[in-house]
């Protein structure tokens, strides 16, 4: 009796595939296909806003050969690194405070981190412009008080970087927070009883045991920053053009889609390299990760 039934029953993997199938198909179609098409376009040629399918490496030659693109990319790379570092240094204490002392309000506090997302990114950046710009709150106040305005805040790389920190710090805080809520703070008491001063306990215990969340936060901040378009456009000056901004111009103003695609591929590879660099630092066993990894 049971033999007949089990004969008809689908294999567990197959049944699961039935559930996961639609989502997986959507991801493949909406993520991988456009990505593939960009790879293809990057080897094509654009002329007068038209794409021609004659295969060549000119786009990559331009990209690697012209100094301007190198500058844009290095600028984006350095900006992303600095912004990530600032988010890390500012985000850790906030996440720690919420996880440790937030008590019954900690979920609310974390949800409030999402408050800026209630409006769009452009609106938020415009609001930041209203704070930092020449007629913004900071500088106007200084002028009113008879002090010189802070020029570094007006349409500069600094302003653009501040904008990035503002846009992405909540990702960092959330990632670290989610790691810390699963962290057993009693381990710190153990470390202290065994002779570790508070900072030593942090380095020995808290940091390594929350490295997964921190690494996720770093990736979540660094990669979008590398591709950043918005903040240099609204907050940066003429010397703030980022790689991403230049990339978007290829698809807009100049209409050089093939070159833009090549830039996209380059950006993708750069981001992938970041993930590859972080990957070996994450050792699940050493992280205190308790979920069993199926072999």
């Amino acid at each position, binding site marked *: 009796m049971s033999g007949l039934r089990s004969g008809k029953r689908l294999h567990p993997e197959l049944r699961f595939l039935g559930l996961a199938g639609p989502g997986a198909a959507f991801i493949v179609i909406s993520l991988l296909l456009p990505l593939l098409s960009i790879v293809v376009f990057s080897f094509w040629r654009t002329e007068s806003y038209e794409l021609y399918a004659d295969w060549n490496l000119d786009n990559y030659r331009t990209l690697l050969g012209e100094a301007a693109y190198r500058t844009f990319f290095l600028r984006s790379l350095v900006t992303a690194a600095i912004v990530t570092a600032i988010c890390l240094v500012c985000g850790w204490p906030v996440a720690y405070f919420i996880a440790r002392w937030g008590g019954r309000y900690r979920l609310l506090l974390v949800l409030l981190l999402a408050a800026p997302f209630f409006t769009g990114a452009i609106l938020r950046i415009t609001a930041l412009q209203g704070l930092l710009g020449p007629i913004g709150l900071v500088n106007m106040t200084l002028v009113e008080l008879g002090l010189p305005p802070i020029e570094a805040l007006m349409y500069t790389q600094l302003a653009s970087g501040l904008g990035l920190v503002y846009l992405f710090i909540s990702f960092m805080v959330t990632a670290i927070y989610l790691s810390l809520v699963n962290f057993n703070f*009693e*381990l710190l008491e*153990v470390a*202290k*009883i*065994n*002779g570790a001063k508070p900072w030593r306990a942090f380095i020995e215990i808290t940091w390594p045991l929350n490295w997964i969340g921190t690494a996720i936060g770093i990736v979540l901040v660094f990669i979008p920053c590398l591709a950043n378009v918005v903040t240099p456009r609204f907050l940066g000056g003429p010397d703030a053009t980022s790689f991403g901004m230049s990339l978007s111009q290829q698809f807009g103003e100049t209409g050089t889609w093939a070159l833009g695609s090549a830039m996209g591929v380059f950006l993708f590879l750069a981001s992938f390299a970041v993930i590859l660099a972080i990957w070996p630092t994450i050792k699940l066993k*050493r992280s*205190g990760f308790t979920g069993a990894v199926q072999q």
Partner: protein
Amino acid sequence: MPNAALELDSVTRRFGPVIAVDRISLAIEQDEFFALLGPSGSGKTTMLRLIAGLEQPDEGQVRIAGEVVTDLPPYRRGVGMVFQNFLLFPHKTVAENIVFPLRMQKMDRAQQQKQLGWILELLHLQGLEARYPNELSGGQQQRVALARGLISRPALLLLDEPLANLDRELRSEMEVEIRRYQKELKIPFVYVTHNQEEALTMSDRIAVMRNGRFEQIGAKTEIYTNPASAFVAAFVGHANRLDGQLSEIDGGLARMNWAGGQLLVPRPADAKSGDRVRYFIKHEDLEVTAAGLNGGGLNGHVANDINQVSGTLRDIIFKGQTANYIITLPQGTDLVVSDTPRTITLKPSDPVIVRWPAGSGACFAAEGA
């Protein structure tokens, strides 16, 4: 005591309106295995945390090896601690976990390895050095936690219910082991437990805690045989509880009216005739025999300095070395007698007589009376 390993001087800790530790004074000797025994919420864990420096006392002073440590943070107190849930560092190997205290002391590597070898051998942990905590059994994890607590030969080792998460067999094995380490290393141990058998097996001296105060403190045999209060009598060992009223005081003894008869009990301090009292007699102090032909009807009689009551054997709970004989008395209460199972051949529903020496056991004024 100038050379006490640990001294508490009227230490108090409040949490809001709750007084978790209430003016506790205590001195623990070098070489001593000291148990803090009490039900959950009695303040014993808070006391341990006060000694470790994880809590600050609101009043009073803590001294370790003569030095005042009341205001020192835990990492300057030089004590070791072992926790109920082991609390090993999950990202460190067994060896890294164990040498952690030595690394914090900046001991040189060669010395660290020497100490590690010594403690691994002492706790039978050789071969597990490279494992991670999640690859160890519960018993192994507890040994590693002990090794971490002991490796630096701390001035004091605090143990917070370290065996509560282990299964019974392993627990009794570890009870003996832990006592052996203490005796070998001559490090004073302060052992918190709610398990009276653990406290009795392992310690030299026991403090029974209740509501943040010591109900009684003394050698374990003293606590066991001579409880100072009804709470201690009920908490330590297994005792029958009989509630009655004193009728006659006679020197150190008193007659207690109970269930229509009388029993000769020790006289509670300051007790007067007519006081309501609570009498405790340990299971193993009672003796059960088959009722003789003329033994029926006896209930609460004192004859030849023997208390005796008659009842019906309801059940025998065989426990191996001993058996518990549960005897139902005519008025409905149960008495438990613990005896060697071989000595008597009784069957359930047999009429029996229970006897014990008059004046043994412990008797206290009924609480709230």
